[in-house]
């Protein structure tokens, strides 16, 4: 761990480059299926194999999805943009170049509102978004010949990507995490991508440098690759920050280079093999005309955008009176937001809906996900309408809060309606003062010592009496009524 004084002396400067695979049915420049997980080299054609004479033709749907991403992040969309060739040689790139956008990308100058766990808001500006095709996949292990050969699967070659480049606005690993979370939420809401890091549909590289706090000039940056989870992004940034601070403190210079993050060792290591490869000799792609996105296309796409996380967040705060942080958690995905909103509407109690979804529902979800993998809210045994009914049962005093937790667990296992459970198990709250008074009389009669203590002015013993009465009524008595009646009875005793 870096000493606090050094941490205070040096500031972290981070820019993130996020590659996002868009969920079109076909690849960017050919009609091959854009599918993850199919048998190797079954979704290939002359275009994505780079066979001589094959010509790329762009998918209109891919441009629409890219456009959605740009509009959802407040980017300026350029009417004319140009594809360029990025030249390098690697076995996963059959043409010897990647079709990308270089000096004239389709979108620039956006912004993403990130929200940290402590509720701090942070705006990260976007430098640009550009479209490009993906490379194939190299397989380094799992075959008898893996010791000295590599396999190449070109199913992913030509898959449609957007690269989202942030400005160096990020100042901590937490901010990086918050930015990625917010960006992912936007891309998922806007239906651009499923943003599944395990499947590689979201990938992240980080540019990290350090500078003495207050300095204006940026330090030399290192580019960290191979960050395959939000957690690893945060850890790699933290490691790299400490490495660079140690270098600078020892009077050395940070070298501009590409470094690979190794999760197993939690460290970054120089990738010397690629140092020479930064000379990509970009030039305009002669096989594709300039891309023109006219005002009508842009307008239609903008009009079709769903409510985005930041707007939904603000609306939840205003409409349901819940805290900003809760609203942020409840809008991470459209699914959870819709679930919450149905509960809030159905129960007429936004705060209770938020509490139940954020604690009980999300906890059960987590448990389920750790044993079953991805779980969708629509497949849960508890429907939003049933949870709303449960909240109404509490609010109308039919059951108390403690009983409600039990009913919730029964609903989770059986999928029954809360009313049915309450009726069958006889769980409804006892608000009948006669029954409660009877219980109070019994408790007072059998506890002369405690009554004496109360009479000496130790009025806080009232809690003990309430507890006894609750026990006698099987936890079903209305705690407020018990409290009032115990006080009256003790004062009269």
């Amino acid at each position, binding site marked *: 761990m870096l000493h606090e004084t050094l941490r205070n002396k040096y500031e972290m400067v981070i820019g993130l480059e996020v590659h996002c695979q868009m969920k079109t*049915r*076909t690849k960017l420049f050919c009609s091959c299926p854009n599918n993850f997980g199919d048998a190797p080299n079954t979704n290939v054609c002359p275009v994505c194999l780079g066979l001589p004479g094959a010509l790329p033709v762009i*998918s*209109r749907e891919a441009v629409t999805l890219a456009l959605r991403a740009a509009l959802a992040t407040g980017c300026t969309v350029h009417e004319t943009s140009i594809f360029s060739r990025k030249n390098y040689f690697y076995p996963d790139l059959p043409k010897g170049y990647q079709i990308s956008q270089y000096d004239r990308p389709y979108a620039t100058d956006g912004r993403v509102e990130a929200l940290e766990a402590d509720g701090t808001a942070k705006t990260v500006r976007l430098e640009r978004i550009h479209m490009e095709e993906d490379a194939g996949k190299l397989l380094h292990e799992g075959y008898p010949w893996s010791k000295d050969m590599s396999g190449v699967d070109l199913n992913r070659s030509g898959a449609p990507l957007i690269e989202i480049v942030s400005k160096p606005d990020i100042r901590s690993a937490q901010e990086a995490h918050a930015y990625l979370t917010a960006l992912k939420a936007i891309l998922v809401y806007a239906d651009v991508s499923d943003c599944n890091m395990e499947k590689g549909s979201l990938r992240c590289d980080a540019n990290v440098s350090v500078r003495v706090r207050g300095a204006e000039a940026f330090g030399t940056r290192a580019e960290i690759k191979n960050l395959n989870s939000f957690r690893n992004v945060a850890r790699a940034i933290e490691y790299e920050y400490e490495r660079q601070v140690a270098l600078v403190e020892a009077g050395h210079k940070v070298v501009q280079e590409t470094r690979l993050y190794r999760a197993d060792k939690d460290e970054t290591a120089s990738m010397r093999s690629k140092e020479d490869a930064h000379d990509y000799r970009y030039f305009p792609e002669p096989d594709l005309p300039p891309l023109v996105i006219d005002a009508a296309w842009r307008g239609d796409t903008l009009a079709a955008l769903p409510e985005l996380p930041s707007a939904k967040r603000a609306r939840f705060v205003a409409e349901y009176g819940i805290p900003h942080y809760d609203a942020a958690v409840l809008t991470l995905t459209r699914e959870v937001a819709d679930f919450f909103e149905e509960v809030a509407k159905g129960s007429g109690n936004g705060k209770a809906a938020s509490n139940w979804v954020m604690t009980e529902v999300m906890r059960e979800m987590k448990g389920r996900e750790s044993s079953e993998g991805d779980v969708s809210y629509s497949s849960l045994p508890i429907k939003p309408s049933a949870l709303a009914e449960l909240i109404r049962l509490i609010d109308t005093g039919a059951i108390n809060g403690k009983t409600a937790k039990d009913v919730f667990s029964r609903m989770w296992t059986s999928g029954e309606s809360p009313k049915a459970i309450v009726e069958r198990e006889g769980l409804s709250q006892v608000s009948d003062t006669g029954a409660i008074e009877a219980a109070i009389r019994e408790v007072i009669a059998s506890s002369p010592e405690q009554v004496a203590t109360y009479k000496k002015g130790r009025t806080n013993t009232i809690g003990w009496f309430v507890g006894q009465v609750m026990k006698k009524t099987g936890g079903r008595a209305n705690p407020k009524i018990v409290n009032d009646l115990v006080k009256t009875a003790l004062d009269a005793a």
Partner: protein
Amino acid sequence: MAEIQDKLLTHIATLARLSLSEAETRSLAHDLAEILKYAASLESLDLTGVPPMSHATEGERFRPDEPTHDLTREQALANAPDQDAGLFRVPQVIGG
């Protein structure tokens, strides 16, 4: 000049993963210089106010988002110098 040409050519060859003999380097450097000289004749034109053109044709073509299978795996791999288990097989590459 000649030395710069050689250096540039060696750099380009490295990027293209080509190894050239000294004689090849010299001869290609000469050819490259000729090509660049020819292209440089464009610079004699006064192009003030002319926007850069990235493509010779106007208008565009879009493809519908309808998947097709144009090649079988056997066809895709038919010309590969080496293959196994449905994969193209290449000398081992590490990293990136």
